[in-house]
């Protein structure tokens, strides 16, 4: 299935929750409303002729300092049918919350923890949402563009 066909099918199934389809970039992506990403994910993973059983990558994106939104990008692949699709969820920088897809693809468990760690996006329903790469008592989320590193961490100087 091409991304266009998948978009049409999702649009028919979920209607308003599928916000838009962007084709002009190199990898086309489908923008999904944050609250329905878990349902869309389950439909894609289990739906007939879709079977997206493989989550290749889950990443957070912050486009610029001025941007008001953060993005979560899901790269999906179907080992059965050998097609792929990219989903995108856009959330506001203030209080970003997205439902977890950990129950669909276990890959998401650690990837969501990483995205939470580095972007501060909260994944609702995640079984163990805590920092993974940085220490537990680190302040701030470093991959945000407006991040300022602290001068000291546990009385050690941070900037080198």
């Amino acid at each position: 299935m091409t991304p266009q066909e998948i978009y049409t099918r999702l649009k028919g199934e979920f209607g308003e929750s599928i916000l838009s389809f962007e084709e002009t970039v190199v990898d086309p992506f489908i923008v999904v409303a944050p609250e329905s990403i878990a349902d869309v994910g389950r439909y894609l993973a289990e739906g007939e002729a879709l079977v997206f059983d493989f989550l290749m990558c889950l990443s957070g994106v912050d486009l610029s300092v001025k941007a008001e939104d953060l993005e979560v990008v899901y790269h999906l692949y179907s080992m059965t049918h050998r097609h792929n699709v990219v989903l995108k969820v856009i959330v506001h920088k203030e209080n970003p919350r997205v439902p977890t897809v950990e129950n669909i693809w276990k890959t998401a468990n650690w990837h969501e923890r990483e995205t939470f760690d580095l972007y501060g996006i909260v994944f609702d329903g995640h079984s163990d949402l805590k920092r993974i790469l940085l220490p537990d008592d680190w302040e701030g989320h470093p991959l945000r563009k407006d991040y300022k590193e602290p001068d000291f961490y546990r009385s050690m100087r941070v900037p080198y």
Partner: protein
Amino acid sequence: MAAPKPESKFIELKPFTDEMVVNMGPQHPSTHGVLRLELKLDGEVVREAIPHIGYLHRCFEKHSENLSYPQIIPFTDRMDYIAAMNQNWGFCLAVEKLMAADEKKGFEVPERAEYLRVLICELNRIGSHLLSFGTYGMDIGAFTPFLYAFRDREKILLLFEKICGARLTYNYVRIGGVSRDMPPQFLDEVKEFIDYFEPKIDQYNSLLTDNEIFMERTTGVAVMDNAMAINYGITGPNLRGAGSQWDLRKDEPYSIYDRFDFDVAYGKEIPEIGAVLGDCWNRYKVRMDEMKESVRIIRQILEGDIPDGPIMAEMKAVRPPKGEIFFRSEAPRGELGFYIVSDGTPKPVRVRAKSPCFTALSALQELSRGLMVADIIAIIGSIDIVMGEVDR
């Protein structure tokens, strides 16, 4: 009066042990880097093994946002430092594909460079699998394979030193080609190495793979079936060990892999020795078989003609068009993906590295439940992680 019978409270029929928490690592020779495992033990049985990572986090993704595309390549070297050539290549492939989206900026990588890339990366794959084989033996308790593996890996490193001057972090594959051409007689030396190395694989198989003690430790241990592997997003030899024949070099051929004749190594069920699909032994065996396939590819390069010509595409500054791309390539440890978001400037907005070791390690908690402490060592060795790539 008869002596009193001993009361049963002196004989413990069902000993009760408290849960004990043991920290394995961060500095431990068999954790392959700086990994801390929080083991919750019931006697010698593992109730829960919780990995704690991040000790080698060097902010690759944050650094990348402040660097131009060619400047990022040396940082990829430091991710999986055992197979740095493959990491360079994975990143360059992603950038090249992004640039190809714009007709004016797209370019063709010269044939000679493609052949050099395949040659070098397959050599690096052998070197990486050799290290995995050697250290796995050492983890399990056999010291000799380690010495043999490092002896042979040294020969590969010497070849790399001749072609790019470095032994560990190469920065050899560049966007549009490779950094320098082969020195004279390089191909003869590769041939000499391959002729020397090919019979050694069988020797190593008889030394370790078919060793009774080794098999006892690894067959049937920590079985990860195909469905579980896919659900965890596990790729590379770990997925193929579960019986899948998924290999990007074959299934979604990039570069010039479609010109070579090679088979995909995958795990097999062998009841005589107790090997089950997806156990530690099969994951390990896939790597041994893969080395043979890499030798086959290299032989085809040596026997065919490497075309003359430039080793670098002609292009202006590396400035990909606005857009985003996710590209994955088959590194020795699995699918290495790069997700790049570009806004048309010389610096990327976002570079995300999808590390195969990161996903493989995330399955450890489920794999190790209910096994013995010693089996944890066998699992970590068999999923072959490099912490530099897990933490990035």
